[in-house]
């Protein structure tokens, strides 16, 4: 049998088998789909709790005394009452936010109230933690129209823990 030289035949195509590549690609795709989890973004609220007790003596006249936010809880752990400097505000964190915003104002920069203001959180032992985060959110800042964070109070600390209910 005579075999013709096929190299000269320009119409013949060398076809690469796509099957293994498609197999692997689909396996990769299935892996990524199975391991894909929609995870919400997480962020932190910084809390400075120094080891030493606050310095005794006369307070710094340039510095505001800490604003005391008291969070009282029902026996179930739900929020019962918010107070700011012993003034009851009901259960609305929006009211707390507005009060803090009135105190801090729009002044920013070195030496401003916003820079020196401090909030001390005093919560009942059995209060659910989510209310504490809501309170910290209310005093820490807000989102402007462009969803940028405008800071209010950056110094937040806890008062000593209260005794657990019996």
């Amino acid at each position, binding site marked *: 049998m005579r075999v013709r030289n096929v190299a000269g035949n320009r119409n013949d195509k060398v076809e690469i088998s796509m099957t293994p590549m498609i197999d692997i*690609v689909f396996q990769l795709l299935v892996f990524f789909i199975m391991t894909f989890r929609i995870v919400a973004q997480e962020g932190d*609220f910084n809390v400075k709790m120094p080891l030493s007790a606050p310095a005794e003596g006369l307070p710094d006249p340039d510095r505001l005394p800490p604003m005391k936010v008291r969070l009282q809880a029902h026996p179930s752990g739900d929020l019962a009452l918010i107070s700011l400097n012993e003034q009851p505000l009901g259960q609305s964190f929006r009211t707390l936010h507005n009060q803090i915003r009135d105190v801090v104002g729009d002044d920013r920069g070195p030496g401003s109230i916003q820079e020196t203001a401090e909030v001390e959180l005093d919560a009942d032992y059995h209060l659910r933690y*989510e209310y504490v985060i809501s309170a910290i959110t209310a005093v820490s800042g807000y989102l402007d129209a462009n969803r940028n964070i405008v800071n209010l109070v950056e110094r937040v600390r806890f008062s000593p823990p209260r005794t657990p209910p019996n």
Partner: protein
Amino acid sequence: MRIKKAESNIVEGDLTPMIDMTFQLIAFFMVLINFTQSEQNERIVLPDSELAKPPETPLEHPITLHLTEEGTVIIGGEEIPITGLGPYLSREANVLRLRGRPLSDATIVIRGHRDAQTGKVQELIRECQRNNFETFALRAEEDVGN
């Protein structure tokens, strides 16, 4: 012998668009895959906050503590009571000292369950303070609903 070329009746579909789409899907999932799941724990449901945004720069020495709803702490895959946290924190402190870094460089990241008692969070902070840590970050989940 002369062999006639038989006409093929197989109709081959064009696979190119499908492969293009598949590669795009793979690229999409590769970009979005989250490798930081070691910092997370499925038992912890974080509280929401509209101000909780990921930090622009990662924390230098984060030590992540998961506080469960029951008031126990999960660290390094182990669940322990808050009072038993001392040896773990001492070990972390020793690691920092060996690296020549002060303890003030470390940040204790508290991932507390939203229904945990606030007193437990404060006890946890106090336990860390006993081990000379003083910088804390309370972690919350970004609330995109508002």
